[in-house]
């Protein structure tokens, strides 16, 4: 079947098998930031944006994104790089395997809410599992990023 979508800002059409998952389709298109993790819809490694909403690409058929916008970490260059600097500064990446999915969901949160509380950050990121870090470094990184962004925006006014 033919699938037409906008991937990372580029409109494209591809012939796909009807049963292919979005995760496999995206990796086939070279979006290697999208990781295969638990495959039971629990770990958040495969998080992408579907029309700006974070979803698990391991749990949706590629066919279902017909005519829609899909964004992976590759499509969020500057936004992701800025946040990643703060996560890395806290040593919160460690093996790094969960990082793309974690970054995607953190960006989704920070788009939804400019200054989330610690509790809101923890709740929003509860669907992103990391088996290295214990989450504290990532939390510090996000808080530091929020503070930096606030100052940057304040300075720009």
């Amino acid at each position, binding site marked *: 079947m033919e699938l037409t979508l906008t991937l990372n800002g580029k409109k494209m059409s591809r012939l796909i098998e009807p*049963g292919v998952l979005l995760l496999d389709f995206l990796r086939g298109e070279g979006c290697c930031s999208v990781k295969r993790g638990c495959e039971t819809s*629990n770990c958040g490694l495969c998080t992408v944006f579907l029309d700006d909403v974070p979803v*698990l690409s391991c749990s949706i*058929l590629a*066919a279902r994104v017909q005519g829609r916008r899909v964004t992976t970490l590759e499509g969020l260059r500057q936004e992701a790089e800025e946040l990643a600097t703060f996560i890395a500064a806290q040593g919160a990446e460690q093996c790094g395997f969960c990082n793309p999915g974690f970054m995607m969901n953190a960006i*989704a949160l920070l788009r939804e809410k400019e200054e989330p509380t610690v509790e809101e950050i923890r*709740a929003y990121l*509860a*669907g992103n599992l990391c088996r290295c870090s214990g989450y504290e470094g990532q939390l510090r990184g996000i808080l530091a990023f929020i503070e930096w962004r606030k100052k940057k925006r304040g300075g720009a006014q």
Partner: protein
Amino acid sequence: MIGIRDYKRAATLEEAYQLNQKRGNRLLGGMLWLKLSRNSVQTAIDIGGLGLDKIEETNEGLRLGAMVTLRQIELDEKLQTYGGGAFREAVGRIVGVQFRNLATLGGSIYGRFGFSDVLTLFLALDAEVCLYKRGRVPLRDYAALPYDRDIITHLLLPKAAPLAVAYRSARLTKTDFPLLTCACAVKSDALQIAVGARPGKALLLSGLEKYAGRRLDEEEIEEIAHHAATTVPTGSNTRGSAAYRTHLVQVLCARALRDCFRKEDGCGADADS
């Protein structure tokens, strides 16, 4: 993992219904549970383009489309007004935001899963299930029906919102399947309590008529909680024993009832179980 041979985006409910009558075909909700099955599906039927993703106020009550996601339920202002935070409490601990952006109300209700937070809450709220062919069926009856090939189009919540609603669950970790769930709805003429994840599917507590339509004191709350613990059947699985669950029935029922009457006082509720 499931294998899917063909995919069809239905243009109408009738088309979806006709396709769904074929044995090897399956209707897609959020697909999160279906994906884990080992079945082979001939045609996956997608009803995502039929406008069933809205939460609307109608003359008959609040109408939620089958394709409304759990995340919509968590955030919708109309539902928060209707249930005073119980909706957020019931779905907000289900895995993660990305999961809840895919999981659908219709899929949760059709599955009638034992672990379902959604089924527990909607049972207590006296919801009705709107089926494409069969029409409206009270959720309490639908929960007992065998799986069939009709299509859930909507869930309907009664127009008169309860005076107070509370939801409690116990989990081993925050985003795990629940060990036990409990929802209470206090109405002007009835008290409804549903208990789920027993680990069997949620059921409504009977024998509460004498407590309906009035404020309950602490002694009566304890009496109801004890009644729940002695009448709700529980079982054991890897998450907990039947005895532990029975203990939780009593504890969560009492807490949910207290939440309800605190809410009636306008004091809000601390929902941590």
